[in-house]
């Protein structure tokens, strides 16, 4: 069982770097995908899967007691697949079939098509509701798993997110943890310019959630906050961690250009990106 694995912060940072490299290779080989959206929540996903937070069994993917991880921002599928493969759910070779005909490694996640993929996402705004369903089911079945949902910031414009937020507080879903990858950009531009979310903390608070803010690239801070929300489970208040992140984190020219949303790096760009990521080793 991987949940007890303890890695040093340095090892986790190296794990994060490996995930970024895999996302790069996958999307560049596929010639499409969302590398920048996959890079912003890398440390969050690393903390969950490799920092001892999620309880899971790669050889028994649908273990009923498992903690759930739902990738609501489905366009970060490459990151999800990379994490699952590094966690031991399937061979890493599968990653290079991203978006190929006949491959289960679909452009956006399809529930159950790969082991460990909990939900079909990609039409945005749907993951939090699914997470709440898992919470209610776990409660009814007398299980004590936790449910983590990774939200994009853009998808918080969808009404369903707020329907789910309202219901989660009503049902006292203390073991529901939303992590909002607040990279400040949606497809067409800066969120503040397109359709502003602020005041975001106040919005979640007013819906009855306990709100935490972290630097989403600081693995220590992410981990300590994930530990904290575990301890707050008994309060019955749903928990949200607003992770301030940088879209395209790790590759300077992608960080500087939001149009990389939904666009893979070409071979030359990928070479430059690889050099940058290798330099941070």
């Amino acid at each position: 069982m991987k949940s007890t694995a303890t890695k040093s912060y340095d090892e986790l940072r190296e794990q994060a770097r490996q995930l970024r490299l895999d996302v790069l290779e996958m999307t560049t080989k596929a010639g499409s995908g969302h590398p920048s959206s996959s890079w912003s929540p890398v440390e969050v996903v690393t903390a969950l899967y490799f920092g001892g937070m999620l309880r899971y069994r790669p050889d028994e993917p649908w273990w009923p007691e498992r903690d759930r991880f739902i990738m609501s921002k489905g366009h970060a599928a490459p990151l999800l697949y990379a994490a699952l493969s590094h966690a031991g759910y399937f061979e890493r070779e599968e990653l290079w079939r991203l978006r190929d005909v006949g491959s289960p490694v679909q452009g956006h996640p399809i529930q159950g098509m790969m082991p460990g993929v909990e939900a079909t996402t990609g039409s945005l705004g749907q993951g939090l509701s699914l997470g709440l369903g898992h919470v209610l089911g776990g409660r009814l079945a007398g299980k004590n798993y936790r449910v983590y949902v990774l939200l994009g910031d853009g998808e918080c414009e969808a009404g369903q997110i707020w329907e789910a937020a309202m219901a989660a507080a009503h049902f006292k879903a203390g073991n529901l943890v939303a992590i909002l990858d607040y990279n400040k950009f949606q497809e067409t531009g800066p969120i503040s310019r397109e359709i502003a979310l602020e005041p975001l903390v106040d919005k979640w608070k007013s819906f009855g959630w306990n709100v935490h803010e972290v630097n989403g690239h600081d693995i220590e801070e992410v981990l300590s906050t994930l530990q904290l929300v575990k301890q707050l489970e008994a309060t019955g208040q749903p928990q949200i961690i607003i992770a301030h992140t940088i879209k395209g984190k790790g590759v300077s020219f992608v960080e500087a250009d939001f149009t990389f949303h939904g666009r893979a790096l070409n071979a030359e760009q990928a070479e430059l990106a690889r050099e940058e990521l290798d330099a941070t080793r």
Partner: protein
Amino acid sequence: MQLGKQAGLKLSDAPLRNVFGDALLDLAKSNPKVVVLDGDLGNSTKAEYVRNEFPERFFNIGIAESNLVGVGAGLAGAGFYPFIVSFSSFLLCNAYDQIRLAVAMSEIDATIIGSHGGITLGKDGPTQMGIEDLALMGGLPTFTIIVPSDPATMHAAVKAAPDIKGPVFIRSSRVPMPFIYPMEDTPFEVGKANVVREGTDLTIIGCGMMVSAGLDAAAVLAEEGIEARVLDLHTIRPMDIGAIAAAASETGAIVCAEEHLLQGGMGSNVARVVAEENPVPMRFVGLKDVYVESGDPWDLLKKYNLTADDIVAAGREVVKAKKAA
């Protein structure tokens, strides 16, 4: 107008929605995995019968259909069998994309109940009526689509649902439907249409309340010397191609009748099968590109040509066309 009277069917006092509530409660008693998700209409859909006995397995998610479907799908992921219940109009039109991803594409085991299907909810008017539900469900691969025609098949369908692999849609209704089948040992097999009346001159293919109307029509046609077979196509998908092909080859003429828009409903799907298997003259009874208004259900059926009389007229016509061919 009294549905099933001309055919001599035994009337039911209970609206089909009440029958559904009873059936769901029966199932919940025998299957502890069954959970019910309500969109704050449990007193209308009668899903509340379960709330009264098993409150811990009943979740009112409120007037938020997108979330309703998502939470239901999550409960399936947690190992339960969800019945997601609301008016078919609100549920399908508000939460189509959620049903598409979280239920259909994910191929989860779950049942969606579209209550108040058709126009016979009557006086609440077109905003509440589910006249496009079969077309919408038809647009979602992986769903089994069932339209019970009487109390017995409603019970049988609800009971059968958890054993069906993948998602299921069952249409419920606000009005009573007469008994076509016995409540015990009801002949009901998913995907297998029932011949409820034999005949050789034409086949009336119906679903829901239009099966009773079809039986009434057959009784009238018989007085004119026209013997109609009546086929209860309770499962719209998977469609019983064999029964439809047999209807075409053995009777040579088909009338389809449904309480639904003609576009994308039962009849248009039957026509596709007939066109491929054995083209014969066809006529269609259903709603023609229209939103109907508030009104007494039976007045509305009359005004919008969804009665046994309309099936009779279509039957005469199609037999004439068959002879002319």
